[in-house]
Structure formats: structure tokens, C-alpha cells
């Protein structure tokens, strides 16, 4: 299972398809072959049964015919008379009877080639035969099977197996003997035995033309298991061939199979009631489904063809799946390596196509985001630079140094020190080693230093106050965000005011947020000025500050966190900053 999971899709599809196809074909082939074979075997046994039944019928019919001939003879009054009264007859009369009897027997014989001889053996010792031949003195008639059987059969016909007939001198024909006991006119007393010998060739003719496939054949055995007729009886009797006899003797009517000499054979048996013979049909199993070995070969080839097809089809299917996947994989690798312009060119409408489409969209989004991020970063740098630039305002510096100079000339040394120190601190905090964020505390200090300096210049015209909630000192805020607002307040609000101006700076803890306010009671702004406050560049080069602060706030904290101006003309202006509370990171301190 572990191995399976780790193999490529292509491999798994291939193996799976081949496995299923072969299994299916295999099972189907075996089942259908078996079915075919079984039904053909059944049909064959059926056919063989019918065939040997036919043979049996033919033989029985033939023997029936002979039986009726024998009955005709047995009804012959001449015979009955002659053999009953033979002791009482004169020689002349005997000859007369004999002639008449012989005449009636020859009429029967004349038309037939199959009857070899007809004889009547009287118990009184008289014998009449159809042949003009002397009898074999060495043949003991009363010991012969046909004679004995006739006596024990109650006047019914007995049929012998095939044998050599030796009752005539110098003649030894092969015959099948029909014998019956004859009775006198009253049908009370037996008078002798009638013997009709049939040419063995009759049986030969009935049996020898039967075909059961190329190798199959039929044969006949009698009740004792001796062969009546067999196409290979010479071979069997000389020991060159064997034949199944015992199992046949045990079967009345039916079939069984045997494995002989490397071949499967089917034996179908029919017992004849009349003769006691058994007629056997032998068929060879490998002939049943003719060319069964060819059939097997065809099945084998079908499997091979299906295998090849399975191979080819699965190859193409799996390729159609894994190739685009591989392409996708390659593109992903390229994106991973940094090429965000990579587009996966898979246009199919299936799941893989969807996947690729989604992937392309995702890559584009990432690219856009990255670009945006880069743009943002650039903007931030630019803004910061601008802020810094604004901060290092030559005018401001020049004025401040001027003030320091005049104070020095006026020997206001303490003030000189304070102002210089404030200036130094101002610039130190401005630069702040380039970091974006600064604590609330430091930013307030920064704006305080700025106000200290400005106070020296504006004196009583400028009053300020800075308050801050204790809890928020350590949180971070954007540097250089208050100072430009204060600067704006001074130059646009207070400077042009008649009388003194006040600026209050508040920093408040507002739950998850920090609220910063710069409030002045300067001249305020008209509605028009309010709306333009972010767009106008200031004349003195420090109006950049407000726009800059607003931009930077929005950049760093989000669109919702810009400046909020409130102003009433002639009364004052309040600007608010709201930022989320954030702790300073270790690397920002």
C-alpha cells in the first residue's frame, strides 16, 4: 500500500487498468469457455446417446424381423408334424416331408443374403438343414451355447454373441445365432430346437459406418463382457490395445468419462433389453469443441489484444492527466523561484483547467499585492524623506539660529543654552535613527522642544500646554506627526491673530485607541480652506507637513486613521489623530 501511494499517477492508472482488464477477460474467457465446453459436451453425449440408440434400434429391429421369421417357421405344420411323428413315418414319407420343409425354408433363404443357414434339430434325433452339406461329426451340438440357451428360454428366441459356427463340415463362418425351442401342434410338448444363423457381416455393416468425430467409434459387448463387434477387435484380442469393459458392464444406460493414454474419453452406454448386449459410444473430449486448443489460443490472443489496448488507453489517459499536472508543477516551481509573471497555459475545461485558472489568478493577485507593497514602501520612504526634509526646514533653522545669536548678544546665556539644547533634541528626535515609530512620550517631547523654541520667538503671543494620560506613554505612534500640526497651528492660526494665542496638545487613552488633539484658538479656517488643507502645498515649505502626516498616518495605520480637522472661523481649530494602540516592537526601540 505504501508503495502504491508513492508511485506516480501514470503508473497506478496503468497497473490498475491492466489488472482489471486482464482479470475481466480472464474470468469471462474461462467462464464462457467452460460454458461452451460444458454445453458442447452435453450436446455430444446427447448426440452419441441418440446415435447408439439408433444403432440399437436398428439391431433390435433387424432381430425382430428374424424373430418373426423364426415364428413363421415355428408355426409350420409340416415341421411340427414331421418332428412329432418322425418315428412313425416311412422313409418315403420322411423324404416327402423333408423336401417340403426344405422348400419352405429355401424360399426364406432365397431372398436373403444375410441368413447363412436354417436348421432344425429334433429331439428325436432328426435334423433338417438348409444347406446341402454334411454335418461336422466333431461338433457337439447339445453343448453349444445357442442350444443350451434356447432350452432355458421357454420357447422365446435366444440371441447369441458373435461366434464361429462349426456344425457344418469344412465350414467355419462367423455368425450370430438365433435359436428357439419348437413345440408340437398342441403347443404342449417341445419337439426340438430351431437355429437361424445370421451372417456376422450384418452387424458389421450396421456398425462400421458410424462416425463419432475423427477418433470416436462404437462397439458392442454381450452380457459376459465378450466383444460382439469392435472396430479394433483384432488389436484387442492380440493384446495390442485395451478397451474399457468392466465399467461398461456395470452401467445400464448412461455415460461416464475416463482418462486413457493421455486423452479424455467419454463412454456412452445403452443396454439392449432384447439381446442383453450393450452398445457403447466412445468420444474423445478434445474433439468436442473442435479445435478446442485453437479456441484456447484464440482466448489467449484476445487477452493479449486487450492487454495491449489497456496499455495504450491507460497510457493516453494517464498522460492526459499527469502531463498538465506536471506543467502546473513546473509553473509553480517557477513562481516559487520568483517569477510572478508565469502563466500556466492549460485551457482544458476539466478540473485541472480550473486548477490552473485559479492558480493564475492567485499568482496575479500575489503579484499585484507585491507591487502594491513595493509601491507603498516607496511612498513611505518618500513621505518620510519629505517629512524629514520639512523638518530640516532651512527657514526654521535660520530663524532659530538667529534668535540664538541675538540672545547671546543680549547675554541671555541661560536662554541660549536652553534653546540650543532644544534645537539639538529636536533634530535628534527628528532623525531618530531613521525609524518610523516613536513612543508617544518621545513624540510629545519632540513637539515640546519645538514649542520651546517657538516660544522664544513668539514669546507671549504663544502659549502652550501639553497633557497626556499616564497609561499611553509607551505606545507607539508615527514620528513627526504632531510637530507639523503644531507648526500649522502657529503659522496659520496664531500668527495672524490679534492678541495671544494658545495651543493645547492632548494625548488621551481611548480604550484600544490613542487620541491626540492639537487645539488652538487662532483664526480658524473657512470651509474652503478646510477642504483644501490636504491638497495645498504651503508657501513656507512646511504646509507639506500636514498633507504628509495625513498620508503617512493612512499609510501606516490604514485609511480610517488620517487627520481630522475641525475649525470655526475666528475661534480656533482642532485637529485630531486617532491611532490604534500598539506596543513598540523590540527592534523599533
Amino acid at each position, binding site marked *: 500500500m505504501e508503495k502504491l501511494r508513492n508511485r506516480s499517477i501514470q503508473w497506478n492508472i496503468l497497473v490498475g487498468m491492466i489488472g482489471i482488464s486482464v482479470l475481466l477477460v480472464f474470468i469471462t474467457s474461462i467462464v464462457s469457455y467452460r460454458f461452451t465446453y460444458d454445453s458442447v459436451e452435453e450436446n455430444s453425449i446427447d448426440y452419441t446417446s441418440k446415435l447408439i440408440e439408433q444403432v440399437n434400434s436398428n439391431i433390435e429391429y433387424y432381430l425382430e424381423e428374424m424373430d418373426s421369421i423364426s415364428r413363421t417357421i415355428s408355426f409350420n405344420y409340416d415341421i411340427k408334424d414331421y418332428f412329432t411323428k418322425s418315428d412313425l413315418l416311412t422313409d418315403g414319407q420322411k423324404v416327402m416331408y423333408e423336401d417340403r420343409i426344405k422348400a419352405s425354408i429355401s424360399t426364406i433363404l432365397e431372398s436373403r443374403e444375410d441368413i447363412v443357414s436354417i436348421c432344425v434339430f429334433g429331439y428325436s434325433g432328426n435334423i433338417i438343414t438348409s444347406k446341402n452339406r454334411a454335418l461336422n461329426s466333431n461338433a457337439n451340438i447339445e453343448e453349444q451355447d445357442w442350444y443350451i440357451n434356447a432350452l432355458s428360454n421357454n420357447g422365446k428366441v435366444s440371441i447369441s454373441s458373435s*461366434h464361429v459356427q462349426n456344425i457344418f463340415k469344412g465350414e467355419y463362418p462367423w455368425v450370430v445365432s438365433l435359436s428357439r425351442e419348437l413345440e408340437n401342434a398342441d403347443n404342449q410338448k417341445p419337439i426340438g430346437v430351431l437355429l437361424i444363423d445370421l451372417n456376422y457381416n450384418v452387424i458389421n455393416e450396421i456398425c462400421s459406418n458410424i462416425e463419432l468425430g475423427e477418433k470416436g467409434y462404437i462397439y458392442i459387448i454381450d452380457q459376459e463382457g465378450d466383444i460382439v463387434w469392435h472396430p479394433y477387435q483384432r488389436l484387442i484380442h492380440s493384446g495390442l490395445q485395451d478397451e474399457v469393459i468392466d465399467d461398461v458392464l456395470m452401467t445400464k444406460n448412461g455415460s461416464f468419462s475416463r482418462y486413457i493414454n493421455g486423452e479424455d474419453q467419454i463412454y456412452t452406454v445403452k443396454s439392449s433389453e432384447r439381446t442383453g448386449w450393450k452398445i457403447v459410444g466412445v468420444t474423445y473430449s478434445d474433439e468436442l469443441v473442435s479445435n478446442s486448443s*485453437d479456441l484456447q489460443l484464440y482466448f489467449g490472443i484476445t487477452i*493479449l489484444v486487450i492487454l495491449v489496448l489497456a496499455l495504450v488507453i491507460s497510457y493516453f489517459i494517464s498522460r492526459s492527466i499527469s502531463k498538465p499536472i506536471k506543467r502546473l508543477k513546473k509553473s509553480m516551481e517557477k513562481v516559487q523561484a520568483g517569477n510572478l509573471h508565469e502563466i500556466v497555459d492549460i485551457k482544458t475545461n476539466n478540473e485541472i483547467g480550473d486548477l490552473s485558472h485559479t492558480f493564475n489568478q492567485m499568482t496575479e493577485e500575489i503579484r499585484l499585492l507585491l507591487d502594491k507593497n513595493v509601491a507603498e514602501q516607496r511612498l513611505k520612504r518618500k513621505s518620510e524623506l519629505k517629512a524629514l526634509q520639512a523638518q530640516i526646514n532651512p527657514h526654521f533653522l535660520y530663524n532659530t539660529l538667529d534668535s540664538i545669536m541675538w540672545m547671546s548678544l543680549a547675554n541671555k546665556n541661560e536662554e541660549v543654552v536652553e534653546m540650543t539644547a532644544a534645537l539639538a533634541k529636536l533634530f535628534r528626535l527628528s532623525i531618530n535613527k531613521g525609524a518610523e515609530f516613536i513612543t508617544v512620550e518621545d513624540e510629545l517631547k519632540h513637539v515640546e522642544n519645538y514649542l520651546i523654541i517657538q516660544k522664544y520667538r513668539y514669546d507671549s503671543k504663544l502659549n502652550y500646554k501639553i497633557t497626556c494620560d499616564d497609561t499611553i506613554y509607551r505606545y507607539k505612534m508615527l514620528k513627526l506627526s504632531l510637530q507639523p500640526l503644531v507648526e500649522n497651528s502657529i503659522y496659520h492660526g496664531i500668527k495672524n491673530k490679534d492678541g495671544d494665542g494658545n495651543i493645547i496638545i492632548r494625548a488621551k487613552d481611548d480604550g484600544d485607541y490613542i487620541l491626540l488633539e492639537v487645539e488652538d484658538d487662532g483664526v480658524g479656517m473657512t470651509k474652503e480652506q478646510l477642504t483644501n488643507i490636504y491638497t495645498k502645498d504651503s508657501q513656507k515649505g512646511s504646509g507639506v507637513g500636514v498633507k504628509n502626516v495625513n498620508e503617512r498616518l493612512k499609510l501606516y495605520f490604514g485609511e480610517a486613521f488620517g487627520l481630522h480637522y475641525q475649525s470655526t472661523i475666528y475661534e480656533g481649530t482642532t485637529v485630531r489623530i486617532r491611532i490604534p494602540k500598539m506596543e513598540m516592537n523590540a527592534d523599533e526601540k
Partner: protein
Amino acid sequence: MQMRNKIKLSLIIGVILLLIASLYIINNRNNDGELKKSVWVIYKSEFQTEFWKEVTKGIDLAAEETGTEYVIVAASSEGDVKGQIALVEEGIRSNPSAILLAATDYNKLSSVVEEATDSDIPVIMIDSGVSTTDYVSYVGTDNYKAGYKVGQRLAKNLGVGDRVMIMNYIKGAQSAMEREQGAIDGVRAYDKQIGIDVYYCNDNVDDAYAYVTKMQDYGVTFHGYAGLNETSSTGVGMALYDLGLSGTVEVICIDSSIKEIELLENGTITAIVVQQPFNIGYTGIKTAVDVIMGKEVDKQIDTESKLISKDEMYLPENRELLFPFQDN
């Protein structure tokens, strides 16, 4: 990736080749085992006795079984040695798969047999062999063994110092001499110091008949008689019957005939040793087919003779040997 594709490609090609090969095999399947088999059979004489009719039946059955074609040729009479030689040569020219030959002369047919073997035609001797050993196999009755059976049976019930007459047919004939030697050895096997007289009747019934009667006239007593072929046996049997000696002496014969069967039935002949001509023909063809198929065969194949006494003569296995079917 390249490697994988190459493997797959070669796999597919391999399978396709296999397909083609199997189709080819199917087409040729039906032709296998159809190796041409045709056999040229040369008898001793055009006129076929019962014996040779049986040989033919055996050939026919074996040929049918194995799908072999055959043709039987012979000179007009058994004495026509030159005629038979010519037929063998004709056989060689027609290039059959094998030749079956019953030689009319043991010595004179040798060189033409060698000629056939040199022409790469397997020769199988049936019933009568030749002096050369340059043939594939000899299929027939072991005459020596047949004679031995006769001798053994003859001497079985005799006493020490008894005397027997062996009636042979042609002095110098290969089969005759073999039978004679076998018979003599069979008698001697008992170590009863039995006297043996051998006489040659020149294959003449009357001659044999006359000799037996003559010996009887001279008052020479024989306690047993052997006839080594049909004519000699018939002569001996009839003589003994006419002399009224039936049943007083044991008579063992080789080869049967209707007359001999009569004599067997009436007790004059004690037992007959019969050959199995059907087997000679059948085994002859089967051996030829084996050789053609490239199998190993024995040099000497004995089709065996059988000793049949009066009690056994009507047993199923013996009937066919004594009473061959008459074809209508």
C-alpha cells in the same frame, strides 16, 4: 522520462510481435502432423492367401489410424525373384516415405534393400527377411521361437527315450531352418534323450503324407509328430487320421488351415501354433510411421506366435486367429 517512454514503447512492440507470431502459429497449426506419409508395400505374390489377406487388413487399419497412404504391389508368383527386385527398384524411384518388403529370397533381395536404404528410404522387412542387416526393422514372427514352442509342447508329455518326427518343408529356406532349429532345441530342453527325425517334404502335402505312411509300414514308432508349416502339417495329419492313429500320438503344427482345424477338432492334431498376420501388417505400418516421425524403433519386432489346443480354439481371442472373417 525518456527511459520510461522507451521501455513502454518496446513493451508495446514486443506484444504486437507476439500477436503476429501467435496468428502465424494458428494458421500453421492445422498443418502440423500432416507430414506426408506414403508407404510402398511389396508382397511375395499377387495371389494373396488367407495369411496375406490378414496382413493386408492389418496394414489397412494401421494406415487409417495414422493417416498413411499405401500401395501393395507384387510379382505374379512367389518364384519371380527378379520381378520382385524390379518392383523394389520402382519403389525406390517413386520415393515413398518408407518401403515394407516381404522378401521372396533371403539372399537375392539383399542388395536392392541396401540400395533403398542408401537412397534414404527406410526399409521395413515384414514376415520374410534378408541376409543384409541394412534395414530399419524386421517385423514378423520369430520363427525360431515358434519352432521352440512346437518342440516344447511336443516333448512335454513324452517319456525318456521316446522318438519324434519333425516334418519340415524346404531344406535351406530361412524360415524353415529357423523353425527346425527352434523345434529341436525345444525338444532338447526337456533333457529326456528324445530321438529326433527330420524330414523335408518339399512343401508337398502328398510327400509328407507318403513319408508318414511309409514309416508306419516300416514299423518305426514315433511318439510325437511336428509339422513346421501348413503343407507339412496337413500331410502328416491326414496320414495319421487315415491310419487311424488320431489321438494316440501328439501332433503339434505351425500355421493353420481349414483342414488342419478339422483335424484339430477330431483330435488328430493336438495343438496348432498360429502366427498373427494381422499384427504383422498393423505393426509394420505403425513402425514405418514411427520411423518417419523420427522415433527410435527396435531392430527385431516379434509379432508372436500362439499355441492353441482343441479346448482353446473357440475362445474369443483365438477364434480370430484360426477363423479369419470372410469379407463379402
